[in-house]
């Protein structure tokens, strides 16, 4: 008798544990994302806020470590167990979309009277579109800008880059001039401060674009790195390290020896999303942002975001859409990108607001962000991005570590490996 009762109790408990319904008529959905603790805490708050405002839906937040995120996502997508709304890094968006894992949101956008494409920066919409169909909503969008140490500039007696930019003379010659003046050695000849640093891939891309270069041709079928403009861009990046000696070598910069927040770096190419970290970490000097210098061809930066996607197998696409819409609504963008400056708003209205332009806390030149997004260029991210960039970066290592100082030689090698990847049938 007792055993019988125990069994019933266990089965009931098990059934309760398995149930996804929290209340009658309530739709339960899951949202999956990754990020640093601050980002996760914010997104947790957003889920709670959504649950309060939408009593008919309950969102459960799944936090996944960044290192395991892609693997977990793809396994869940392939096994039809993915969360109803997932945040996907744009680096993986094209690859996963091509596999048919994402729901086409075009009909949902058309059926939603409150969703207007014209409310958003076109670049943020373009990133989510494939053959004219919308497969995601952009979040954590942004581009690279130059963060600079104002105090270091003032001490060295060099013109503030923002002043140079205002006077229309913010170009790579001036950039090198300032970076060289900021670079310092101690009495033993050891570097103690650098004017700039070569950022990790793909943050150095604006320098390539500035010289008119690109990674691939316009149809993304062949490498464009051997083109003279691209070679000039790569040569310039290498020269920062080995000719002008105003950027640390890989060995000098290992173990984060020269980071912007340490105060040992004058100018740093970085994403807009670094603002909260610098606000928190930098206590000893003043800093600000300035647009990417103009090169011989352009002063274009790169832009990229993450996408909120709904898996194609999602059982509650309408509820998932409501949640994705909530995260990209104007009031939530105010919280994420204005109050907390996580990245850049996708909505023009939010970026144009008085609150967004408030420069009380650094950085003060907020319009740098707006300009960067408006004039920014997308990276050529396709479904084979991971493959060809890995192959390319292995060759570029030669240039970055100074084993080869002639960019043309390395660019030709990189072209060969990129073309090999792109001409191969995918999947081998």
């Amino acid at each position, binding site marked *: 008798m007792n055993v019988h009762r125990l069994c019933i109790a266990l089965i009931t408990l098990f059934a309760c544990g398995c149930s996804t319904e929290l209340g009658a008529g309530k739709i339960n959905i899951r949202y999956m994302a990754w990020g640093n603790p601050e980002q996760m805490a914010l997104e947790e708050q957003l889920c709670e806020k959504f649950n309060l405002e939408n009593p008919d839906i309950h969102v459960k937040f799944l936090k996944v470590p960044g290192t395991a995120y*892609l*693997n977990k996502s*793809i*396994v869940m*997508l*392939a096994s039809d167990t993915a969360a109803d709304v997932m945040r996907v890094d744009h680096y993986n968006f094209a*690859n996963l979309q091509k*596999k*048919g*894992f994402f729901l086409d949101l075009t009909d949902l956008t058309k059926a939603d009277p409150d969703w207007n494409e014209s409310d958003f920066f076109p670049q943020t919409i373009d990133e989510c579109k494939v053959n004219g169909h919308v497969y995601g909503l952009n979040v954590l969008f942004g581009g690279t800008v130059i963060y600079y140490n104002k105090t270091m500039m003032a001490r060295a007696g060099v013109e503030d880059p923002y002043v140079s930019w205002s006077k229309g003379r913010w170009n790579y010659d001036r950039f090198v001039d300032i970076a060289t003046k900021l670079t310092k050695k101690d009495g033993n000849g*050891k570097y103690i401060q650098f004017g700039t640093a070569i950022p990790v891939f793909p943050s150095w891309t604006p320098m390539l674009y500035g010289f008119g270069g690109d990674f691939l041709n316009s149809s993304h079928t062949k490498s464009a790195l051997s083109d003279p403009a691209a070679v000039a861009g790569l040569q310039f990046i290498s020269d920062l390290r080995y000719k002008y000696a105003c950027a640390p*070598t*890989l*060995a*000098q910069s*290992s*173990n984060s*020896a020269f980071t912007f927040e340490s105060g040992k770096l004058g100018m740093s190419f970085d994403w807009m999303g670094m603002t909260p970290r610098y606000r928190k970490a930098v206590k000893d000097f003043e800093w600000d942002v300035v647009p990417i210098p103009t090169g011989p061809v352009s002063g274009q930066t790169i832009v990229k975001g993450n996408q909120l996607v709904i898996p194609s197998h999602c059982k509650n696409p309408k509820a998932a859409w409501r949640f994705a819409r909530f995260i990209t609504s104007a009031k939530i963008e105010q919280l994420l990108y204005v109050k907390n400056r996580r990245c850049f708003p996708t909505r023009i209205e939010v970026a144009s607001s008085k609150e967004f332009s408030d420069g009380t806390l650094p950085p003060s030149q907020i319009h740098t962000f707006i300009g960067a997004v408006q004039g920014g260029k997308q990276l050529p991210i396709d479904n084979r991005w*991971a*493959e060809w960039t*890995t192959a390319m*970066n*292995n*060759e570029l*290592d*030669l240039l970055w*570590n100074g*084993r080869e100082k002639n960019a043309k030689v390395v660019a030709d090698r990189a072209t060969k490996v990129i073309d090999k990847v792109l001409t191969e049938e995918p*999947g*081998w």
Partner: protein
Amino acid sequence: MVKKPSKKRLIDRQEFWGFLFICPWLIGFLIFTVGPMISSLVLSLYKYDLANAKFVGFENYRRLCTEDPLFWKSLKNTALYALLTVPLGIFGSLLVALLLNQPVKGVRLFRTLFYLPSMVPAVASALVWQWVFNADNGILNQALAFIGLPNIEWLQNEKFTLYAFVIMSLWGIGGQRMIIFLAGLQGIPESYYEAARLDGAGTLAQFRHITLPCLSPVMFFNLVLGLVGAFQVFTSAYIMTSGGPNNASLFYSLYIFRNGFEYFKLGKASAMAWILFAILLGFTLIQFALSKKWVHYEGEAK
């Protein structure tokens, strides 16, 4: 009337209890080891990216061997790594075990201290070693500077990267392998040494004719496991260099991981895993065949 022999009930059978007790392990082994092995063997015959699967026979194997230079590069890097680290590791562990087998005061403390590094998680030790190999301020370059040698860019210069990983592998000489050697040393009867001393054998002769032959089964065990371990090196390269610079530290397991979990070429990655299995099986069988010549088991007549 002849009485039929009574059939033993299941619970009276000894095998039943044996299997019952190993059930948790057995189920885990079948689900998490045998299952994935069979699936990976099947997958290696497919072109599979988690979304689409197409049967291609042995095409993954053919392409790996004839069209993928990185496959050969990763195999070469790993083989060179194994060639250097396995003998060095065995020699180092044996040396440490011999030292820690001496009847000196505080030997237990020394044993603990030597074993400690192997308790550090691989990721944490990789981060520590990044500092050791720091070209500007690393302790290794400071030691080189002390004896008048120039700085080496251990992790940035492809000529030295593999050797940096070999040096790093010495971090593990005080670990499990050393413990096994120590146990082996302590199992050698003292009477053998007494007899040898009475015959006038010196320390080296005792080591050559008693210690080494008696330790040969342990050495064989460490050799087999060492080779398998060396071919599976992954974490340190993944954390410290991600296979660079210019693929100088692209080890075989890292390349499997890259194909499987970065490019999602599951068929190719599975084929690579089975090639590795075949290589290791081949080496192990060769070692077993050769062991008849140099491994001495107690009570065995040679």
